[in-house]
C-alpha cells in the first residue's frame, strides 16, 4: 500500500504527460488509480470486519524512530474507502466540469497529489509521517482553492485557508512532539495502549491544547470556521472532495484516532462537546443567511463538523456509534450535494438559489439526486441521514456535561439544517421556471454518475442499515474501548429522539417557508458578524505586515555594517550566556609560547591593526592578506597541512576576487562618524574578547576532546589516513552536503545580483542620459 500511495504521487506528476496521450479522457484514466485502491481496500474487508488491525511495516528513518508504517483498522479503512471512492467519482466529475479548461493537467496533478496525501494521513501509524501528510494536504488544498489564480478573491481565500491550517499545523507539531515524549513512542498503535500513562502525565494539558488547535483549525471548528466558506472559491470538484468529504475531516479523524489515547478526561470531553456544539450552532445559523448555494452547503458542513466533534466529546459508546454513522452519512450526501451545486452553476451560470426555480423540468435527473441527498441532509426517513440524526439526539440526551445547553444548541442546529436542506433541494427545482444567465440544461453523464451513486448509497444504507453493522462495530471498537457489537435499525420505536425530530421538522419547514423574511431580520445582525473571528484574522494579518516592515527596516536595511553588528551581537549574547550562566568559567591559561609562535601572533595583530587604520583599500586588503598567511603559518606550526593549504588557496582567490571588485568601488571615503566607529570598535573588541575567553575555557583538559575519536577511527572506519578529509566526506558528510548547497546558493546569489544589476544598468544606459561629469 505504501508503494501504491508513493506511486500515486508519481502518477500525479505524470498527469501532464497522460493528458498529452488521452486528452479530455485523462480524468477518467486517472480515476482508475483511486478506484483500484478502493478495490484493494474492499479485499481487506474480511480482516477489518473480524476486528483485526493490519500493520504494514516499513522503516523510513530508523535512527529517528520514523516509520512509514501503515495502520489499517476500522477507522482508517472507513476513511480510506471514502477518500478513494469519492475521489474516483470526483475525478470522473472533473472530466466534464473542467472539459476543455487549459489548466486541466495542473488541476489533475494537484488533486491526485492531495488524494495521496490524504490517504497517507489516514493510514499513517507514525506521528511524524502523519504530520508530513497533514501538511501536504494543507499545501495541496492551498493550490486547489487558488486554482483560479487570476481571481483576487480566490487567492485571498487560498492564503487564508493556508495560514489558518498551517498555523494550526505548527501547534500540532508541538503537540505531537509532546505526545511522543509523554507516551514514549511515535507510533499511534502503541500510544493508544498507553492511555493511563498519557492522561496522568504532566504534559497532558499542554499537549492536548496543541493537538486540539491543530485539529480544530483543520476541521473548521469555531472560532476557526471562517476559512471553510471562503474556500468555496475553489472549483466545485474541490469543494465536493476536500471541503466536505475529506480534508476538513482530517481533524475529526485525528481526534477519533487519539480518542483512545487522550480521551475520557473531563478536559477532553468538555472542550470537545462545547466547541463542537458551538460550531454546530454557528454553522447552521450562518448557513441560512446565505443565498449562494455553495456557501449554504459550506456552512452546513461546518455544522456537520461541529456535530462530529461534539459526538467525540460526549464519548459514550452510543455517541461513537452516532459519530461513525453521521460521518458516513455526511460524506455521502454532502459530496452529492456539492456536485449538484456544481451542476447548477454549470447549467445555469449562477450560484444564487434565489435566482433559480422550476428547473425540475429541464434537469429531472439532477433534481431527483438533489432531493434524495437533501432528504438525507435534512435527516428524514428512510435515509442514512435520519439514522445519523436520531443517534445524535440519543447521544446528546446522555451527555455527561452541560446537557441542557448542548441539547438546546444541537436542536437549533438540527432544524436550521433542515431548512437549509429544503432551500438547496426545493428552491432551484420547484416553483416557477426562472430566467437564469445561461439556458439551463441537464448535466452530462460524467457529472451525474458521482452524485447519483452517492445519493443511492444514502438511500440503500438508510433502508438496510444492517449492512453497516460490521463496519460501525469495527470502527467504534477502534476509537472507543473494547469490543462493541452494533445493530443499527431505522425504527427504534416511538421515543424522545423521534419526538425531537418531529418538532425540528415542523420548525424547519416554518423557517423554510419564511426564509426570505428570516434572512431580512437576520441582516440586522450584520454589524456583529463583521466583528467575528474573521475580522480578528484580518487584524492579525495586518499587524503581521506592520511588524514585518518594521523589522525589515531595522534589520535588513542593506548596510553590511548593520548586518555584521546584529549577527555579532546575537553571537555575543548566546555565547556569553552559555559561557557565564550555564558553565562556570575556568580558564586554563598556561602561556608557554615559543618565540616563533609569538612572532606569528604579533604579525596577526599588526595586520589587524593596519587593516583598520589604512586609508587605501589596496593597503587594507594587503593587511588582511598578512592575517590570512599568518593563520596559514599557524596551521603549519601545529602540523595541520590540509588547513594550511586551504587557508593559502582561499586567501589567494580572495585577492583575485577583491582585485575584480576593488576597481568597481567609488573612491575611498570616510562615511561614518567617530561615534559610530567607536561603537564598531566596542562590538569588535567584545566579540574578539569573548571568543578568546571561550577558546581558553574549552581548550583545557576537563572537557572530552572530540578529536580523539576521529583520530582513532579515521583509518579503521573511514579507510583514510587524512583525518580532515575523512571527517569532511565520511563522518560529517551530511554537514558537508549542506555546505555544498550553501556554496552553490552563494554562487547563484552572486550571479543573480551581478546579472540583474547589469540588466538594470543597461536599461539605464539606453534611457536618455542625464549630464555626466565623470566622463
Amino acid at each position, binding site marked *: 500500500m505504501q508503494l501504491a500511495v508513493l506511486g500515486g504521487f508519481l502518477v500525479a506528476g505524470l498527469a501532464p504527460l497522460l493528458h498529452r496521450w488521452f486528452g479530455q479522457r485523462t480524468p477518467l484514466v486517472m480515476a482508475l488509480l483511486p478506484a483500484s485502491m478502493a478495490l484493494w481496500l474492499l479485499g481487506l474487508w474480511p480482516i477489518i470486519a473480524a476486528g483485526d488491525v493490519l500493520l504494514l511495516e516499513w522503516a523510513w*528513518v*530508523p*535512527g529517528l524512530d520514523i516509520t512509514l508504517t501503515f495502520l489499517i483498522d476500522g477507522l482508517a479503512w472507513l476513511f480510506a474507502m471514502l477518500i478513494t471512492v469519492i475521489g474516483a467519482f470526483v475525478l470522473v466529475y472533473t472530466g466534464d466540469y473542467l472539459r476543455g479548461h487549459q489548466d486541466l493537467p495542473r488541476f489533475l496533478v494537484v488533486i491526485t497529489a492531495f488524494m495521496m496525501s490524504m490517504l497517507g494521513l489516514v493510514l499513517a501509524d507514525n506521528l511524524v509521517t502523519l504530520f508530513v501528510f497533514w501538511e501536504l494536504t494543507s499545501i495541496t488544498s492551498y493550490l486547489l482553492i487558488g486554482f483560479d489564480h487570476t481571481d483576487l478573491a480566490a487567492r485571498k481565500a487560498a492564503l487564508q485557508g493556508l495560514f489558518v491550517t498551517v498555523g494550526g499545523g505548527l501547534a500540532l507539531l508541538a503537540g505531537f512532539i509532546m505526545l511522543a515524549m509523554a507516551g514514549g513512542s511515535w507510533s499511534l498503535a502503541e500510544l493508544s495502549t498507553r492511555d493511563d500513562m498519557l492522561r496522568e502525565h504532566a504534559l497532558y494539558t499542554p499537549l492536548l491544547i496543541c493537538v486540539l488547535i491543530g485539529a480544530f483549525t483543520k476541521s473548521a471548528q469555531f472560532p476557526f470556521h471562517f476559512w471553510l466558506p471562503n474556500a468555496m472559491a475553489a472549483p466545485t470538484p474541490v469543494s465536493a472532495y476536500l471541503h466536505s468529504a475529506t480534508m476538513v475531516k482530517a481533524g475529526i479523524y485525528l481526534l477519533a484516532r487519539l480518542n483512545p489515547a487522550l480521551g475520557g478526561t473531563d478536559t477532553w470531553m468538555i472542550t470537545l462537546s462545547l466547541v463542537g456544539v458551538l460550531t454546530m450552532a454557528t454553522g447552521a445559523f450562518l448557513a441560512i443567511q446565505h443565498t449562494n448555494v455553495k456557501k449554504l452547503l459550506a456552512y452546513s458542513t461546518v455544522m456537520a463538523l461541529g456535530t462530529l466533534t461534539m459526538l467525540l466529546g460526549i464519548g459514550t459508546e452510543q455517541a461513537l456509534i452516532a459519530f461513525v454513522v453521521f460521518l458516513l452519512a455526511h460524506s455521502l450526501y454532502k459530496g452529492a450535494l456539492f456536485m449538484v451545486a456544481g451542476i447548477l452553476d454549470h447549467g445555469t451560470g449562477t450560484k444564487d438559489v434565489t435566482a433559480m426555480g422550476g428547473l425540475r423540468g429541464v434537469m429531472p435527473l439532477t433534481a431527483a439526486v438533489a432531493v434524495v441527498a437533501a432528504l438525507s441532509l435534512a435527516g428524514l426517513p428512510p435515509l442514512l441521514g435520519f439514522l445519523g440524526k436520531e443517534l445524535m439526539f440519543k447521544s446528546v440526551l446522555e451527555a455527561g456535561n452541560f446537557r441542557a445547553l448542548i441539547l438546546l444548541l444541537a436542536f437549533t442546529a438540527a432544524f436550521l439544517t433542515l431548512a437549509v436542506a429544503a432551500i438547496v433541494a426545493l428552491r432551484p427545482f420547484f416553483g416557477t421556471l426562472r430566467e437564469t444567465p445561461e439556458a439551463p440544461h441537464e448535466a452530462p453523464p460524467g457529472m451525474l454518475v458521482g452524485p447519483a451513486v452517492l445519493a443511492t448509497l444514502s438511500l440503500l444504507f438508510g433502508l438496510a442499515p444492517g449492512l453497516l453493522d460490521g463496519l460501525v462495530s469495527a470502527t467504534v471498537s477502534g476509537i472507543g474501548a473494547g469490543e462493541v457489537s452494533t445493530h443499527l435499525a431505522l425504527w427504534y420505536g416511538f421515543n424522545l429522539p423521534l419526538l425531537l425530530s418531529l418538532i425540528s421538522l415542523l420548525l424547519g419547514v416554518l423557517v423554510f417557508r419564511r426564509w426570505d423574511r428570516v434572512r431580512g431580520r437576520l441582516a440586522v445582525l450584520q454589524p456583529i458578524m463583521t466583528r467575528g473571528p474573521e475580522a480578528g484574522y484580518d487584524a492579525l494579518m495586518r499587524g503581521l505586515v506592520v511588524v514585518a516592515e518594521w523589522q525589515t527596516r531595522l534589520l535588513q536595511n542593506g548596510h553590511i555594517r548593520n548586518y555584521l553588528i546584529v549577527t555579532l551581537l546575537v553571537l555575543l549574547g548566546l555565547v556569553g550566556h552559555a559561557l557565564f550562566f550555564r558553565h562556570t568559567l575556568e580558564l586554563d591559561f598556561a602561556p608557554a609560547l615559543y618565540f616563533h609562535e609569538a612572532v606569528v601572533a604579533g604579525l596577526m595583530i599588526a595586520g589587524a591593526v593596519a587593516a583598520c587604520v589604512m586609508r587605501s583599500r589596496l593597503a587594507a586588503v594587503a593587511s588582511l592578506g598578512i592575517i590570512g598567511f599568518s593563520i596559514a603559518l599557524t596551521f603549519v606550526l601545529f602540523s595541520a*597541512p*590540509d588547513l594550511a*593549504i*586551504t587557508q593559502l*588557496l*582561499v586567501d*589567494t*582567490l580572495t585577492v*583575485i*576576487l577583491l582585485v*575584480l*571588485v576593488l*576597481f*568597481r568601488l567609488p573612491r575611498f571615503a570616510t562615511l561614518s562618524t567617530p561615534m559610530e566607529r567607536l561603537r564598531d570598535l566596542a562590538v569588535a573588541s567584545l566579540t574578539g574578547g569573548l571568543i578568546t575567553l571561550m577558546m581558553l575555557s574549552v581548550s583545557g583538559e576537563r572537557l572530552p576532546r572530540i578529536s580523539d575519536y576521529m583520530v582513532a577511527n579515521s583509518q579503521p572506519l*573511514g*579507510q*583514510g*589516513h*587524512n583525518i*580532515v*578529509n*575523512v571527517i*569532511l*566526506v*565520511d563522518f560529517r*558528510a*551530511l554537514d*558537508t*552536503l549542506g555546505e*555544498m*548547497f550553501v*556554496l*552553490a546558493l*552563494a*554562487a*547563484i546569489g*552572486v*550571479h543573480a545580483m*551581478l*546579472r540583474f*544589476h*547589469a540588466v538594470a*544598468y*543597461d536599461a539605464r*544606459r539606453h534611457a536618455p542620459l542625464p549630464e555626466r561629469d565623470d566622463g
Partner: protein
Amino acid sequence: MVRSGTLILNAAARLLLPLQLLFSLFLLLRGHDEPGGGFIAGLVAAGAFALYLFARGRRALDEMLKVSPRDLVGMGLLFGVLATLPAWWVGEPFFTAQWWTIPIIDFKASTPLIFDIGVYLVVVGSVLTAITALVKTDQQDDER
C-alpha cells in the same frame, strides 16, 4: 578592467593550466590519505582557470570549458547526492560509506570519493561563477 594579458602571462597560462589541473586531480585522488581532498583540489583548479581567464579573456575560457560554471555547480550537487544512494541500496543507514576495489588497477573506489568529486565540482563551479560574473560586468563597463 581585465583584458587579455601580456605575452608572458599568455604563454605561462597556456603552459601552466594543464599542469595545475593535473595537480588538482592528483590532490583530489590522494586526498583521503594525504593532504588534499575535493575542497583544496577545487580551489587549485579554480585558481588555474582564473589565471587562464586573466591571461586570455572570458571568451577563451568559455570556449575551453564548454559548460557553464553554473552547470558544474549543479553536477557537483548531483554527485554529492548520488553518493548517498549506494548505502540505501544495500540497506544500510543513509550516507554509510561504501567501498569497492576495482580489480586490475587495484584502485579503491568509494562513495566518499564520489562525494569528494562532488565537492570539487561545486567549489570550481562556485568560484568560477563568481569570478566570471564579475568579469562580465567589467567588460560591459569597458564597452562604454
